[in-house]
């Protein structure tokens, strides 16, 4: 709890101004704390006479877990549109909310949101808390984290979900630590245990060689980031009704010490390998940078992104953002076509959860064939051009 040393307090009111939750007021020249206090500690830092302190008991015992109710998702919004993973979160979120018979809410942060909140409602959100502010134009952990933290403290959802994207995996740990609760990264399955309403969060570990189911038994909210492209997206219903609330953050919560000076997009169609349905990836078998052009052509033909093994990236045939595997990105597209990739475990752990895997390699013993749905043993310089030709024929 918050302790106020009434001998030291001079009643200056700095803490009252500092408090985000209207939990302190100066009465008769002394600060008094009320039940809205969340022990965030900002008043303690602001006090010039050191009259405030928080009893340091790190083991968090939250008053009553049943006070926390509802499913909340963070809806990612970038470059004028809602990220696809948000609709997947609404899909799984709706399922969990219906099971618990609680509302599903979404927190939408960005600048120039337009009709995005209404879209979220049509995909299943009962309530959307939106903040449309120029300070949210570029992603910063601090501001995004502040707002999600504040909304969660006020609304007390039992579950908070976000996409396991670069953004989600960067700022959600900040929110969980601020809320003093547990967080499970990169979940591929979520279910609520009917007996006690605990969220069972299943995720791959050790690069996908092991699956683990994790729970957060004593603290709320139960937080998880969810791997994109695993959950089924919600169905849109344009007639669906929901509430859209313009959430007003305190101005100081819109300040970030970290500044984003510039946002640089890279050939978006081929580089964003974590979001596309199809990835065509190349490895050492391409021989050189020129050979790698073939991968790009096949990617173009199937409308996919370009991936690469570490060998191809280390040889500088293609940039690191394309790297799939243990020291690159983990992907799970519907279709993954591996060309000239031997299938070292470090690569396989990054793509083995793809729905369908095609491997083309001249070595019949290449370990990539162990995880391939369809394998072709052959010279990729012969196979791939024919494949491109055939696909173009099909697609007209």
């Amino acid at each position, binding site marked *: 709890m918050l302790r106020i040393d009434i001998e030291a307090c001079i009643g200056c009111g700095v803490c009252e101004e500092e408090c985000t939750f209207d939990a302190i007021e100066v009465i008769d020249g002394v600060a008094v704390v009320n039940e809205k206090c969340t022990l965030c500690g900002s008043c303690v830092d602001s006090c010039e006479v050191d009259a405030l302190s928080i009893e340091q008991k790190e083991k968090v015992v939250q008053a009553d877990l049943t006070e926390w109710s509802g499913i909340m998702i963070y809806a990612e919004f970038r470059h004028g549109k809602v990220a696809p993973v948000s609709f997947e979160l609404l899909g799984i979120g709706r399922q969990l909310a219906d099971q618990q018979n609680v509302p599903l809410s979404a927190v939408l942060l960005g600048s120039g949101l337009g009709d995005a909140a209404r879209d979220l409602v049509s995909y299943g959100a009962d309530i959307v808390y939106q903040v449309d502010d120029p300070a949210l134009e570029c992603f910063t952990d601090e501001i995004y984290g502040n707002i999600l933290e504040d909304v969660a403290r006020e609304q007390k959802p039992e579950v908070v979900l976000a996409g396991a994207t670069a953004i989600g995996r960067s700022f959600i740990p900040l929110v969980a630590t601020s809320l003093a609760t547990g967080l499970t990264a990169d979940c591929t399955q979520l279910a609520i245990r009917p007996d006690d309403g605990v969220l069972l969060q299943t995720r791959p570990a050790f690069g996908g060689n092991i699956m683990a189911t994790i729970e957060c038994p004593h603290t709320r909210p139960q937080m998880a980031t969810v791997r994109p492209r695993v959950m089924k997206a919600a169905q849109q219903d344009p007639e669906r009704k929901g509430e859209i609330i313009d959430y007003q953050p305190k101005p100081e919560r819109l300040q970030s010490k970290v500044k984003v000076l510039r946002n640089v997009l890279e050939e978006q169609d081929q580089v964003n390998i974590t979001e596309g349905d199809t990835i065509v990836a190349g490895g050492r078998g391409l021989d050189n940078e020129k050979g790698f052009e073939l991968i790009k052509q096949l990617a173009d033909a199937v409308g996919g992104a370009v991936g690469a093994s570490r060998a191809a990236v280390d040889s500088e045939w293609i940039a690191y953002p394309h790297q799939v595997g243990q020291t*690159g990105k983990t992907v799970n597209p519907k279709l993954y076509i591996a060309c000239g990739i031997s299938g070292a475990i470090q690569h396989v752990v990054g793509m083995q*959860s793809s729905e369908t895997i095609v491997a083309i390699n001249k070595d019949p013993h290449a370990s990539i064939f162990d995880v391939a749905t369809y394998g072709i043993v052959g010279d990729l310089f012969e196979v791939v051009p024919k494949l491109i030709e055939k696909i173009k024929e099909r697609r007209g």
Partner: protein
Amino acid sequence: MNIIVCVKQVPDAKDVRLDPKTNTMAREGVEAIMNPFDRHAVEEGVRLKEHHGGTVTVLSMGPPQAEAILREAVSCGADEAVLVSDRAFAGADTWATTYTLGKAIEKIGPFDLILCGKQAIDGDTAQVGPGLAKRLNIPYVSYVRKITGFENDAILLHRLMDDGYDEVEIPLPGLLTVVKEINEPRVPSLKGKMKAKSLSIKTLNAGDIEADADSLGLPGSTTQVVKVFAPEFKGERAMLEGTVDEQVEQLVNKLEPYL
């Protein structure tokens, strides 16, 4: 610039498998290595020190054997090494880990910059860096792929995003997590190896860091593992046969739903 680099000893992922029958982890003969991303964090710390002066302290939380990776980091240019080790830390999730590391860092003393790898390859959570920054109340940037400048107590850098990168400025003290693209780690020098061999590693236990016993290890964790199991692989596995043309024809037929 006083730099602290957090490093973790992990089992080499290629060796880790779960026995589907017994559901136990086959750890026999599994090699323990420095988390690959952390090697890049050490390298970046050493490069910053070489350009701007200061010291690099490597910090690891783990069993006594984790000393090996601290010595490896020293052989690659780190100056000091601290191991936080106590049986009470066992079973810590990222919440209890950031508490422990935060307490250890308070003990180590003032710093300007903390560097971490973007994630460890055993847990793959990527949560310790950001969580630690919050514990220490300092700003952070994740997925740093390039440091472009250091002026007026702020670092300029490129942060990797899903669709490109951001040019970012972070004031110090701060924390960065790095991706492997940031640099090519050096091989240990002979001088470094000598130093690593003779350096005495400072070891801190739960009492030394004045930790609250309830906040450590499994009892101090917010999450608990309920079940561990081997992943299932589904679907057909087929090697296509015939001439190249026939194989391509079959493949395109199979892939019809995706085209």
